[in-house]
């Protein structure tokens, strides 16, 4: 983002192209064929999602033609006890896993940024593994593990797995935030008589807070969104929201599924935008300072 804004300020000095001008050879974005590329790509990217959301309001069970606006399917989704229970389960899992993974992930991010230690490269790679390995491999591994140690599948197993795969994401975000920290502030604090504990809570942590909040929002989003790992670690009676939607999809395609999906889309989109707002707002405030 910062490179983008610096590039834009450098280019602001150039004369602005006017509407009537022909595009210069490298202004691909102003050519007709590129506008067609943009249009086609955006139709491809958005048509499925927008129709899915739109037809959750359609007053017809046969999804294809528009019969009028209704909120019936939302009412049905809200009154569906199984869906309700699945939503509550998702919130419990996401809440608990976010709490743990934010604390552990933030500490890990700080440790990785701060300390020099042997095998750091190897440990660094190992910690990023949950991000890069295919989800299905992690899912079946968790299933085999919980079976081996005799832990019955349920909310605990889902939560434990979610904590494991969200820790690296939190660590990455917090570590990136740590990168802009001026360590001399800590020295000043210690020179002025604060001990290390006080210095951490009063100097380092307040600086890190936006990174920690963004990491927590990311972890929460990843947790309520997860399907594959949850699919393998959930048992009877511990259905989460995406798992419930999946079983509804397998059963039949109805506007009720669209309504439930729309709720999830709105939820995750809202959380992601909140996370971005936290990061960009603090970024701007610091630039002003």
């Amino acid at each position, binding site marked *: 983002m910062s490179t983008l804004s610096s590039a834009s300020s450098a280019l602001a000095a150039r004369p602005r192209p006017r509407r009537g001008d022909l595009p210069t050879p490298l202004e691909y974005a102003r050519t007709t064929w590129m506008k067609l590329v943009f249009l086609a790509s955006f139709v491809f990217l958005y048509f499925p999602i927008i129709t899915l959301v739109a037809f959750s309001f359609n007053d017809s069970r046969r999804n294809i033609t528009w019969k009028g606006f209704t909120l019936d399917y939302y009412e049905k989704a809200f009154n569906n006890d199984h869906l309700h229970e699945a939503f509550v389960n998702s919130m419990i899992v996401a809440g608990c896993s976010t709490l743990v993974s934010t604390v552990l992930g933030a500490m890990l991010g700080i*440790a990785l940024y701060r300390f020099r230690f042997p095998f750091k490269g190897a440990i660094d790679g190992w910690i990023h593994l949950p991000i890069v390995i295919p989800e299905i491999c992690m899912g079946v591994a968790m299933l085999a593990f919980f079976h081996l140690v005799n832990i019955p599948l349920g909310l605990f197993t889902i939560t434990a797995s979610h904590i494991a795969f969200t820790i690296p994401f939190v660590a990455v975000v917090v570590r990136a935030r740590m990168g802009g920290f001026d360590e001399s502030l800590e020295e000043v604090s210690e020179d002025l008589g604060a001990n290390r504990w006080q210095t951490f809570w009063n100097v380092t942590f307040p600086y890190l807070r936006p990174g920690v909040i963004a990491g927590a929002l990311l972890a929460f989003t990843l947790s309520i969104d997860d399907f594959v790992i949850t699919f393998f670690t959930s048992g009877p009676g511990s259905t989460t929201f995406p798992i419930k939607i999946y079983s509804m999809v397998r059963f039949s395609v109805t506007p009720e599924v669209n309504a439930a999906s729309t709720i999830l889309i709105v939820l995750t989109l809202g959380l992601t935008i909140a996370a971005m707002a936290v990061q960009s707002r603090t970024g701007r405030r610091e630039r002003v300072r």
Partner: protein
Amino acid sequence: MDWKTNKLPFGIFLLPASTWLVIFFTVPLAVIWVYSFAERGPQGQIYLAISFENYGRALEWIHLGIIWKSVWMAAVATLAALLIGFPLALGIAFAPPAFKSPLLLIVILPFWTNLLIRTYAWIAVLRSRGFVNGGLAWIHDRFDDLFTALGLPDLLGRFTPLELLYNKTAVIIGLTYIGLPFLVLPLYATLEKLDRRYLEASLDLGAGQWRTLISVTVPLALPGVVSGVLLVFIISLGNFLVADLLGGTDSYMIGNLIAQEFGASRDWPFGAALSFLVMYTTFAILWVRAAVAARSKGTGV
């Protein structure tokens, strides 16, 4: 800070997360790694052993067919994503600065909706009474009206919906859709940094836009292309949800096979071996990706 001079804070910060990841990530992976060499009992029990039989079974004709098909579908989806993604990334990279961030955001936004929902959304588009077939039927009917008015009724016959869902095409469309943002981002990053003087020089020296694109832009953007292509390929290869929802009997992928071995078939050692084959492939591809990135950095391109 060196860990030796600060052992206590180092331990406090590093150990909790590492312990969690060892117990709930590394040990589970080790468990299925050990299982992949084990033998399956008649009721699905697991007898620990050191046998390569499970890996050997992956090379049996029936399984090799599924593996080959997965690789093929993932490759086609990756190619399709590249063909859509390259022009898109080029357009965004060369757009006026004020438009770049919004355009990128538009591309990434669908990536934030749930994977399951993104895949489910395609069912309504592709099924026989879906939007594509609905649109085609509408066009068909208009032509039918036209021909009837011209005194040629029944020229086109009845509209038969295209079979778009529950086959390989549907799976490839689904994988392309999921992979596209992962391709556009690295491509954009490369094209944005690219030294435009090379392109200007090529155009000045008389090469046309196509020639410049193929002989200058694409070679310069190659590290980004390689990085994006490999990423989308591994994401597609390990996917099981898309084939599960959009695929039919002809489009079973390796992910579905793994899920089946851990589910209904209850042959965990074989499932574990397959899962590790996917993982080794992933590691190999990530290694190639890192090597390409290191080399392109070294040559200063």
